[in-house]
């Protein structure tokens, strides 16, 4: 675990396309390698499908599709980050999972307006990671919490 000495909140970082993202480690149940998901006809296009992890059937959100990025062939680095929000458990399919870092929330900055507008609520803040800037992802929005309460 690549934690630093500074006081802060643990985050898991990952990469999708050319950007690095982070989500609170408290939401993360575990990381899984990814081979194939069962296609669910009729589900939103950003749903990669269902996978079975540790005896549980979990829907997986393909973050490339969710973020409007072009598809890439399946690669060994691909990971599913299994997250839990409330009673819901879902997977996030990412290009690669990087590390666990401690981020001081006091240093989070509101993303520039143009970026925020383009990211349509998926990104809540920008944080300075050890090497690069990290986009803090709103997991609830990404896994479609509005679907859960919308109707």
């Amino acid at each position, binding site marked *: 675990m690549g934690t630093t000495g500074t006081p802060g909140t643990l985050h898991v970082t990952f990469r999708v396309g050319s950007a690095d993202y982070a989500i609170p480690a408290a939401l993360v149940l575990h990381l899984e390698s990814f081979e*194939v*998901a*069962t*296609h*669910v*006809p*009729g*589900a*939103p*296009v*950003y*749903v990669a499908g*269902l*996978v*079975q992890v540790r*005896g*549980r*059937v*979990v*829907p997986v*959100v393909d973050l490339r599709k969710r973020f409007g990025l072009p598809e890439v062939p399946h690669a060994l680095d691909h990971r599913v980050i299994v997250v839990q929000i409330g009673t*819901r*458990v*879902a997977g996030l399919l990412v290009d690669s999972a990087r590390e666990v870092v401690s981020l001081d929330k006091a240093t989070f900055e509101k993303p520039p307006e143009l970026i925020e507008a383009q990211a349509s609520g998926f990104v809540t803040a920008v944080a300075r990671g050890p090497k690069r800037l990290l986009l803090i992802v709103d997991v609830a929005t990404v*896994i*479609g919490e509005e*679907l*859960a309460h919308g109707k």
Partner: protein
Amino acid sequence: MSDRVDLQEFVGAFVAEADELVGSANSLLLEIETANAAGASRPRAVRDLFRALHTLKGLAGMIGVEPIVEIAHVLESLVRTADRAGGSLRRAAVDVCLQGVAAIGERVRAVAEHRGPAAVPPALLEAIAAALAGDERGPSPPAPIVAAWDAKLGAGERQQLGAALQDGGHAWTVTFAPGEELAARGITIATVRAALGALGDILKVLPRATPGPPAGLAFDILLVSDAAAAVIADAAATSLERVVELRLPGVVAGPAPAAASAEPLLADIPELEDDAPVTLGRSLVRVELARLDDLQEQLSLLIVSRFRLDRELAAHAAAGHDVRKLREIAALQGRQLRDLRRAILRARMVRVAEVLEPLPLLVRSLARAAQKEVRLELDARDAELDKAVADRLLPALVHLVRNAVDHAIELPEERVARGKSRTGTVRVRCAALGGTHVELAVEDDGRGIDRAAIARRAGHAIGDDRDLLAALVQPGFSTRDIATRTSGRGLGMDIVKRIATEILGGELALVTAPGVGTVFTLRVPLTISVIEVFAFECGAQAFVVPVAAVDEIIELPADLATEPPRRRGERVPVRMLDCRGHAVPLLSLGTVLAIDPGDGARKAIVTRRAGEPVAFAVDRMLGRHEVVVRPIDDPLVRVPGISGATDLGTGRPTLVLDLGALDLSGRERPN
């Protein structure tokens, strides 16, 4: 049921046939007991006894004599267990059977004398259940005996064959080929069977297709007889070379047959050993539900690895290896898994009466708030339900009871003005349905549902009660018009419907009469965890569909389906299937799911949508399975027609389809 009225003319015939069956059951039991005393067993008699009870149950069911159905059913289970365990019935079990058959006889007489048959004394059912629990530890099936007949014989039949051969008897395979000429001379399989039966014991008859005339058919008859081959050939109207004695290179010097193992072994086990199932209520252990869940989870893993085993077996068989022995073990293990599953399910059962416990308090407070007088009657008898079903069911029941008190039951003055008692009644009834389902009814004697008001609200005419229910369960349908002043809340019937059908895989029905009252009936499975499904392939993807939802599986000849005219539209194209002259709409499942053009479809699954048959074309069937279904309830994957996921041994989820609920509009889904 008024539908049964037609059959009442058969009561006389029923009494006669039932009397006969009771008589033969009694003499079979005596034969078994006599053999027991001599240290022998009578597998054939056990099997005949089973069939007599089975027939009694079926006939009594048709005539509507429930107490006989009930007794025959439990006796049948007891005897079936004995048959599977090698065909010997312990003395204690014989005693119980005699009691049970006597109880059936009494009720047949009651029917004959036009008296209502007495209800079944619980003590009798308990005694039978106890004997059953005891008998499940019965002797295991004896080793298989003759290779040629091996796979075809049941445990009891094997035991019988083994015993006969060990006593120095002779076994024969006799082949009889029927034909029109023979039939004209009065020689049919029935007469041959009778003639051979007079020479010995017929253990099994197997039909087999033969090339060419006379009828393209032959019967192989397994006969144990000391008669000479020529005598047998004559009796069977067949030639001598068609009577073949079974030589026994395959005799396995297995455990001594039932003769030795029946009574003496079991006599060592104290009769009062207290390991009866929890449900018998003799001794209770409280178990955390999580532990039972765990147990079931383990079982589901076992079932999954069982699929892998089957798959490997099939692969070996396809490669030309001899897998008969393995198949046999696999079949045995399959039965054991099923038994284990049943045992676990039994442990998970809760009494419905307990589930209903919160209702009296609820009704009391609702009635007080609404200033009504309401009496709640609960009648759950001994019905039981899987805890998982009970937990999901309760909200629906609460909803229905709440509606009954809030909306259906009138205010006391209004009731009196209508000539009813001041106090309204809400009844919740529960009854078991044939071992797989329970039926729960919420009845009230209130004002009934106002059809006209619902029709106005729905904006279309309402026909029968089914129409009415269909309108009520529309999501967001608000029925303020029929609500009382005390509560303006909509009924939320869509939720009740969802629980009954989508979550529990059951049914919801409604009967209502103005001024008289309303009955909502929920029919739900005892358990929701393991169901029987057909697996099939569509596109490159495997799916399963519950057997309960399938009417028929048909071959799909290339030229069978015509394409009716189609106006340009978004809907998935529908073809017309000629099904024995009936026009059945045929849809390509691949197209409906937008995963495949459906060109490779070879089979069609016929199901029903809103009561009408609909066929879905799929590529090929992959067999039937018993699977653990996990509900898919995450909003990301909540799609009409996809009701759950299961694991067929591939390690990845396979979707469980509800063909009746699939969206056929062919619309693209939102991003």
